[in-house]
């Protein structure tokens, strides 16, 4: 029989915990009942500031509508407050008189606004005085919005993050706003005095008056009971007709306290997120105190929910929460702020690096302990925040020139020896594998690079970390790396390198993946992990003669769209050279409306990405778009990025736009060992970033063009090597084809040009494809022409599916898209 799981609190923490439990099949083992104090579904509290500021509507911030509760068989008791827990009988009593039995209880009661004691704040026992608001719930927020229309002067008590956001929101709504802060420093939880001072100047600069060191003692009303102003402890006062109290939050712990659970600042939990007093009661979110810490940010809450779910469902009874490092990046009152870890040095040996430029509102500090970043504050300029957050999270070794942590001064030397990398440094970001995992895999007896990759999944995502994985394995094995014969095979399931494999395929005339396995694999055995690479190779070799068995295709190539984390797909129509027109834009807009596309994103390749499309909607989306595929999902020719060229740009030396479109028209959709991204730019200012593309073309004047190959600006940064400088666009198009064909025929599977070009050597490539010293150019050109001629827009599949159920959902019981829900 299913056990009964009762959740008290329908906020972000409670519902996230339920989502994690459902992911672990908890829906089967538990009947879930949720009590929510507020009479709504679950909403994103972080976005209340946006609702107040008017940038989001109140109905846009819901995370899970009532459907979600129904679909997952969750019994939601919205607007019902739990008033008592009987731990011994395992019952919860609610204010509607109901009594509910539980096997497991999750307390996710969150926090409430803290109202400092001051005279006249309350109209009666429950209601605040006219014009006074907390800033915590959707009701608070909607109340403020309604009242803001009739009021002119607001005071916000509290100069922390929430107070400043409230101030900015009310200012947006036309009110004059003062902020009153009891301490000497704005946002003192995150900022030191200097930073607080600079922030104060910026906030005042946008017209918000700031009063520091002011303790409010009294709320004044007029004879009709309407709010008139506030009085400070020093006797001074401010008139106002609206007052927002954002002086901090307090965890809701009354219920737990009455139930006899240990409560200090919040409910004390163990590493499994259980109350230390009761194994059947879990606690998550702002009402939980773990190892002395109470977290008010969202990221720790996600981590807690994961541990809780692993534990309560029995998926992993050893799952343990070890606390979170908290880092925040936000814009407060128009100022960028990022803060992580310590805001000031604490030990004598801590290094403290500080930069201050008050006139421009810029301030940066960094705290380093034992060579590791333990704290950083950035104000006004947060350009280095991603690097710092990474260093903070993973304990990366830091550059010796500490100043390069704050500014981009040339390229700091980030190539760190593998020996120095800390054990918890993330190596494979796609699959979350750190150095220690790799090392322990080697110590467990796996001494080949491919073996370690197979066991840990490191390098099995985008593949960009393979080199580093190899170095770590080598280092961990102390030079005893097993030479793995399969390392030279093109695919893991067939024992030949690429030239031998291609020769056999050609001689035996193997046109389909299944025929390759039958003829060449040991015992004729199929191998799932070889299929995608073989299909790509056969398409490259045979073009129109390739027999396209769809079961050998990765799902992206089966349905010509890019699979997303929730099983929906992204759709990117072709937009040659990044040039579009009103007709296309109208089509895209209409499709986005019609199919309720959750996100429309401009891509780095100058196209428009429609994200969150259900598989079964793909044919209809394509039909309505009536544009060809942009191939944004395949190991294939992707895009040609261009600048505006010579028609409009006053610096343009060559018609880069026309040339880019011509290249894309000719080579669109070509299969290749890894994706190929190109660019053409009209002058050496290089607005289309051609120097860091797989193939980039730069107009240099007098009708001349430079062709660069092997550039990258993704997981790796590499400036392309100059292949040739030529006199006309036709030669550019021809050389592009020849280089791409040479790459297609000779690169290893998933080997991008930035690895391929230096491996072969630019001189060798130039000798073969430009100077044609071995006489291979004509053959390359002819085989490329064969592939070009075989182009077919894959989105034609939408009209007539090539397999039964090609676009049938693979998750029929899930309501997709789940983004932006998670």
């Amino acid at each position: 029989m299913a056990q009964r799981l009762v959740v008290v609190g329908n906020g972000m923490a409670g519902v996230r915990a339920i989502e994690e439990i459902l992911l672990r099949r908890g829906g089967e083992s538990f009947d879930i009942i949720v009590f929510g104090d507020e009479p709504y579904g679950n909403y994103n509290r972080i976005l209340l500031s946006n609702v107040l500021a008017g940038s989001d509507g109140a109905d846009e911030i819901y995370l899970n509508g009532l459907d979600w509760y129904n679909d997952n068989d969750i019994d939601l008791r919205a607007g019902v407050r739990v008033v008592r827990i009987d731990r011994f009988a395992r019952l919860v009593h609610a204010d509607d008189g109901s009594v509910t039995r539980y096997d497991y209880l999750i307390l996710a009661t969150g926090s409430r606004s803290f109202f400092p004691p001051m005279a006249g704040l309350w109209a009666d026992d429950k209601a605040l005085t006219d014009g006074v608001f907390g800033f915590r719930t959707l009701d608070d927020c909607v109340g403020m919005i309604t009242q803001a229309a009739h009021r002119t002067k607001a005071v916000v008590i509290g100069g922390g993050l929430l107070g400043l956001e409230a101030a900015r929101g009310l200012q947006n709504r036309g009110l004059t706003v003062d902020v009153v802060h009891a301490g000497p420093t704005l946002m003192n939880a995150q900022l030191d005095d200097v930073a607080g001072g600079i922030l104060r100047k910026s906030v005042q600069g946008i017209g918000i008056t700031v009063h520091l060191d002011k303790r409010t003692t009294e709320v004044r009303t007029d004879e009709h009971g309407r709010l008139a102003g506030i009085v400070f402890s020093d006797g001074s006062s401010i008139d106002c007709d609206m007052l927002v109290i954002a002086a901090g939050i307090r965890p809701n712990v009354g219920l737990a306290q009455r139930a006899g659970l240990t409560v200090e600042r919040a409910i004390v939990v163990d590493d499994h997120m259980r109350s230390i007093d009761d194994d059947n009661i879990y606690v998550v979110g702002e009402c939980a105190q773990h190892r002395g810490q109470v977290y008010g940010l969202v990221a720790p809450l996600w981590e807690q929910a994961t541990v809780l779910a692993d534990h309560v469902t029995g998926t992993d009874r050893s799952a343990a929460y070890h606390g979170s490092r908290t880092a925040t990046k936000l814009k407060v009152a128009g100022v960028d702020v990022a803060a992580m870890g310590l805001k000031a040095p604490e030990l004598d040996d801590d290094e403290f690096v500080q930069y201050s430029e008050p006139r421009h509102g810029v301030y940066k500090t960094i705290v380093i302990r034992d060579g590791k970043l333990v704290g950083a504050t950035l104000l006004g300029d947060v350009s280095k925040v991603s690097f710092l957050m990474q260093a903070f999270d993973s304990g990366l070794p830091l550059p010796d020139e500490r100043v390069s942590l704050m500014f981009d001064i040339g390229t700091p030397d980030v190539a760190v020896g593998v020996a120095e990398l800390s054990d918890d440094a993330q190596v494979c970001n796609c699959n979350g594998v750190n150095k220690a995992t790799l090392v322990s895999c080697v110590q467990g007896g796996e001494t080949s690079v491919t073996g370690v990759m197979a066991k840990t999944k490191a390098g099995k995502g985008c593949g960009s970390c393979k080199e580093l994985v190899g170095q770590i394995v080598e280092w961990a094995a102390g030079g005893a790396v097993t030479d793995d014969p399969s390392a030279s095979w093109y695919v893991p399931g067939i024992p030949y390198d690429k030239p031998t494999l291609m020769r056999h395929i050609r001689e035996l005339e193997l046109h389909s993946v299944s025929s390759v396995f039958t003829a060449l694999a040991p015992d004729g055995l199929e191998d799932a992990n070889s299929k995608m690479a073989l299909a790509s190779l056969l398409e490259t070799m045979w073009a129109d003669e390739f027999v396209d068995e769809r079961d050998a295709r990765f799902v992206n190539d089966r349905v010509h769209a890019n699979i997303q984390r929730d099983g929906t797909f992204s759709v990117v129509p072709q937009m040659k050279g990044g040039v579009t027109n009103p007709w296309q834009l109208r089509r895209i807009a209409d499709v986005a409306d019609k199919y309720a596309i959750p996100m429309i994103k401009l891509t780095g390749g100058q196209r428009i990405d429609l994200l969150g499309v259900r598989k079964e909607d793909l044919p209809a989306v394509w039909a309505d778009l009536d544009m060809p595929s942009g191939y944004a999902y395949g190991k294939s020719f992707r895009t040609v990025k261009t600048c505006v060229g010579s028609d409009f740009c006053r610096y343009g030396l060559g018609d880069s736009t026309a040339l880019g479109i011509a290249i894309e028209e000719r080579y669109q959709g070509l299969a290749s060992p890894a994706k190929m991204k190109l660019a053409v730019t009209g002058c050496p200012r290089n607005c289309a970033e051609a120097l860091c593309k797989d193939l980039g073309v730069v107009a240099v004047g007098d009708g001349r063009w430079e062709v660069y190959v092997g550039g990258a600006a993704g997981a790796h940064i590499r400036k392309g090597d100059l292949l040739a400088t030529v006199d006309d666009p036709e030669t550019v198009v021809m050389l592009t084809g020849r280089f791409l064909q040479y790459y297609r025929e000779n690169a290893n599977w998933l080997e991008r040009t930035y690895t391929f070009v230096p491996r072969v050597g630019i001189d060798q490539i130039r000798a073969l494809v430009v100077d044609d010293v071995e006489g291979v150019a004509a053959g390359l050109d002819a085989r490329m022409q064969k592939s070009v001629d075989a182009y077919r827009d894959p989105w034609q599949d939408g009209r007539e599916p090539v397999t039964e159920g090609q676009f049938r959902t693979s998750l029929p019981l899930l309501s997709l898209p789940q983004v932006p829900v998670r």
Partner: protein
Amino acid sequence: MTDVEIGSVDEVPVGEARTFAVDGEQIAVFRLRDGSLRAIDAVCPHKGGPLADGLADERVVVCPLHGHTFDLSTGSEAGGADMSVRSYEVSAVDGAIRITNQTT
């Protein structure tokens, strides 16, 4: 869930899989190139990936999201990760897919 007919073999192309909803469960049925059928849970226990969309061979399916690999007969993770899916006894009876038993 024992002995239920969940769909027709023709719905599953050779070498691929399709998901069927049965009693509130999602089951991925694979039709191997040798003609035989395999059935496992349709959702990857790692991050919820759709296993019917994965590349498969005669032994395993590879989740399309993060590459976790599951044995089609036993449901265990082939790379040694501590996770598994349920597998089911499945057969074709007069062109219909019949699930007879949960095997793990």
